[in-house]
């Protein structure tokens, strides 16, 4: 019996203590009609040896090609120390730190995490994480609606330059709460939010404006102007940003005259493996004045009976286990272990390390764009500044070209035709600091071959 320590003698002794004849008797309150299903579709138990073999084979099948995909998940270097420490039993197998005295390790770590994220975003406070970037944006919108009591419309402007999946998730989550999500179109030339599209709302009540940085198309938004526009109309400004990018780009707290009100995003670039999409974690930071509207757990520093410093979960009255139907969110667990990894990652990289990662990713993406643009028929689609993602236009339909690249061991980028059909044969590419010159050469070689083949076909 895997993971069950009972000997036959133990079972006998325990049943005798309880005063029943067998284990089945302990289930006598469950109607017999409900018991005894054979579980035929569950395979028989295997040992660790057998499952180890299965998983090694399956992981090997998944051997990964060279990655030039970004679009919300990024192939950054993760120091070995991050996961060697994160998977220590004391972090890995601990519960949510409700018993503060027995959880000072996790609690202090989260306090450090909050400090780091607030610092990176130049915002006042951070929560202890949410599920992922997409759901963090949805929660940020719900929070902004709660926080902006002056606005009556529950109208949130959600530009098309925000990650399409984030927009879908937001729609799913806020759908039943009377919130109006409004698309705002982008400038086809610049790949940025279109000021003209925004102007349509100049005179309307707007509860919040979402601004991505960099945006999904890799371009940098004019965050100062957008922030000031929102604030001038009494709207809150929600930033949705890449945390690595914030090491070198103006952080949300510094946007415009007053800074963003809420800044959120996906923490995956901070030491979390891509892992086919999860677990990642969502982060959320905000102005001090909004802290009581922020969802998720928050750790505070306090003192014990003897005056020693200690850490504890605080502001719990916002949460579901206290406020129940009046909670700020139904969120319960966050992504604690991912936060553990991100905190260690941030400590190891520091601000200078993060800057170098961002800058090297930028340099590699520039090199990629330049090299790919030398391939006949390929060109960058936008002319504005970008950090580590960019859109390329191909001379032919993207899907077969990308398939061909994949066959050559290169993940060549994301086909944008489904979400942005108006852009034509466009792909979104990314090169992190891990990509080498040889990788870029492999990319352009494979792209050249694929395009030749496509033109022949």
């Amino acid at each position, binding site marked *: 019996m895997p993971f069950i320590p009972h000997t036959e003698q133990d079972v006998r002794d325990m049943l005798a203590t309880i005063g029943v004849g067998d284990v089945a008797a302990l289930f006598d309150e469950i109607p017999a009609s409900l018991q005894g299903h054979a579980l035929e579709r569950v395979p028989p138990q295997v040992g660790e040896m057998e499952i180890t073999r299965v*998983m090694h084979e399956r992981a090997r099948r998944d051997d990964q090609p060279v990655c030039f995909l970004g679009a919300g998940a990024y192939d950054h270097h993760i120091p070995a120390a991050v996961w060697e420490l994160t998977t220590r039993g004391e972090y890995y197998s601990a519960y949510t730190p409700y018993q503060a005295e027995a959880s000072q390790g996790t609690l202090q770590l989260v306090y450090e995490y909050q400090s780091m994220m607030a610092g990176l975003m130049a915002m006042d406070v951070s929560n202890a994480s949410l599920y992922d970037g997409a759901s963090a944006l949805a929660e940020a919108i719900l929070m902004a609606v709660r926080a902006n009591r002056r606005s009556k419309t529950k109208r949130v402007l959600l530009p098309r330059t925000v990650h399409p999946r984030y927009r*879908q998730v937001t729609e799913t989550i806020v759908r039943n709460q009377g919130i109006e999500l409004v698309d705002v179109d982008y400038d086809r030339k610049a790949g940025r939010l279109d000021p003209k599209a925004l102007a349509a709302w100049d005179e309307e009540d707007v509860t919040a404006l979402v601004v991505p940085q960099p945006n999904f198309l890799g371009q940098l938004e004019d965050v100062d102007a957008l922030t000031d526009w929102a604030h001038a109309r009494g709207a809150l400004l929600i930033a949705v940003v890449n945390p690595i990018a914030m090491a070198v780009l103006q952080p949300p707290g510094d946007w415009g005259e007053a800074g963003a009100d809420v800044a959120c995003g996906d923490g995956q670039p901070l030491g979390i493996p891509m892992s086919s999409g999860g677990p990642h974690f969502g982060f959320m930071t905000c102005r001090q004045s909004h802290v009581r509207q922020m969802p998720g757990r928050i750790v505070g520093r306090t003192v014990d009976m003897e005056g020693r410093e200690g850490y504890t979960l605080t502001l719990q009255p916002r949460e579901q286990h206290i406020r129940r139907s009046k909670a700020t969110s139904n969120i319960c667990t966050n992504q604690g272990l991912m936060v553990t990894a991100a905190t260690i990652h941030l400590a190891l990289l520091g601000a200078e390390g993060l800057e170098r990662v*961002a800058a090297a990713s930028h340099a590699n993406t520039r090199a990629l764009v330049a090299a790919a643009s030398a391939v006949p028929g390929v060109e960058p689609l936008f002319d504005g500044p970008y950090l580590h993602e960019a859109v390329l236009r191909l001379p032919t339909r993207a899907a077969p070209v990308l398939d061909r690249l994949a066959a050559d061991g290169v993940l060549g980028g994301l086909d944008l035709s489904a979400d942005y059909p108006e852009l034509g044969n466009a792909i979104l590419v990314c090169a992190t600091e891990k990509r080498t010159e040889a990788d870029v050469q492999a990319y352009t070689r494979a792209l050249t071959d694929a395009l030749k083949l496509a033109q022949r076909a």
Partner: protein
Amino acid sequence: MLIFDAGREGRRAVAQAPAEAAALDDIPAAHRRRQRAALPEVSELQAVRHYTRLSQKNFSIDTHFYPLGSCTMKYNPRACNTLAMLPGFLDRHPLAPEGFGQGMLACLWELQEMLAEVTGMKAVSLAPMAGAQGEFAGVAMIRAYHEARGDHERTEIIVPDAAHGTNPATAVMCGYKVREIATGADGDIDMAALKGALGPQTAGIMLTNPSTVGVFERRIEEVATLVHEAGGLLYYDGANLNAILGKARPGDMGFDVIHMNLHKTFSTPHGGGGPGAGAIGVGPRLAAFRPIPVVGREGDRYRWLDERDLPQTMGRLSAFGGNMGVLLRAYVYARLLGREGMPRVAEFATLNANYLMTRLRAAGFQVAYPARRASHEFIVSLKREAKELGCGAMDFAKRLLDYGFHAPTAYFPLLVPEAFLIEPTETESKEALDGFVDAMIAIREEAKNHPDTVKGAPYTLPVRRLDDVRAAKELDLRWKAAASA
């Protein structure tokens, strides 16, 4: 000491960042960060030492017995971690073609099948990233179902008063009003209250079975019939699934949708508060509304199903497919249990709970539902100790820490005063349970003779009781650099 205190300007873990500081000169200055972020500046050794030492300040399954009711703190097999962290799984980009993920998708598909079978549901989606998201998905599907039928008058979700706080919070998030119904003196639902609450406004009911008071809802089939007759659907909160895993199936009881906390029943790590995974199972009424993506199989190929395959889906819950790494751990665990192992989970979790309840009762502690079997958990009320000795659940909880036991869930469910909700799980040995009983008895003796000792606990941990009021009043939520030149 905070990690920031170990920092010195210019110190770095040099091996971890690119050697060159590449130029950013083509990015306009207006877009560039002006002041470096306040992050720690430490060496690699300092970081490793700091976080190694911090970890030692935690209790955890790997170090302590953790009888935390409703949380199912059981052993997290190490193989689940090791195998889920193979480079081939970790390094896969979520948008990579499915051809590069057949091994991973095979695991997820098989997990879907196993979960459907063991819960008696028709189909499963692994998309929700936590129990609360699974709940949200479940209730949102109930809503989508009624809407798809043009049944727009259903505005209420019924929730027992003892339910987890997430239940009412979720119902509200989905735009429903919450109607609470009372729990009977025997721990079962008050059927009269249920009947009174049901009506054409009823969208559904959210139940845990066994319930949060630790007993199996005996008339569940009658409940299901009543709710279905009223046109509502039944939502099963899988928080307590460990109690019946492989023994009884929510689908057979009449539930239309279930969420499973894989980080409880399927032993993926709690991680100090996540990540979890809140897979949902659905009956025939709701299969079309599952959240996407879902893994499909065609011949021997696996692929993601999305809105093209499930046009009535309630939608997407995350940017990508969910918490894959957690799901891989759950898959390994499910295979290690297999068909034989799953019912044993329920059997031994129940045996441990009933044994512990019997022993504590024999030792003179008051059990909340003495006439009932314990499920995988049970409630002790320390009302008498609080009144007679001045030491209540909080005091016992803190003193238990000194004895090397994590405290049970205290003050939940709310309807039992000075409650200890105790869930030993199947992976603890008889000796561990006996040790816990001994500690409870010893603490009661202390409470009789030296109540201040108990009220002052803990003594042997990194800190003594913390000032929560100050924490909430004088909010100190982040380190700030000392003002300097």
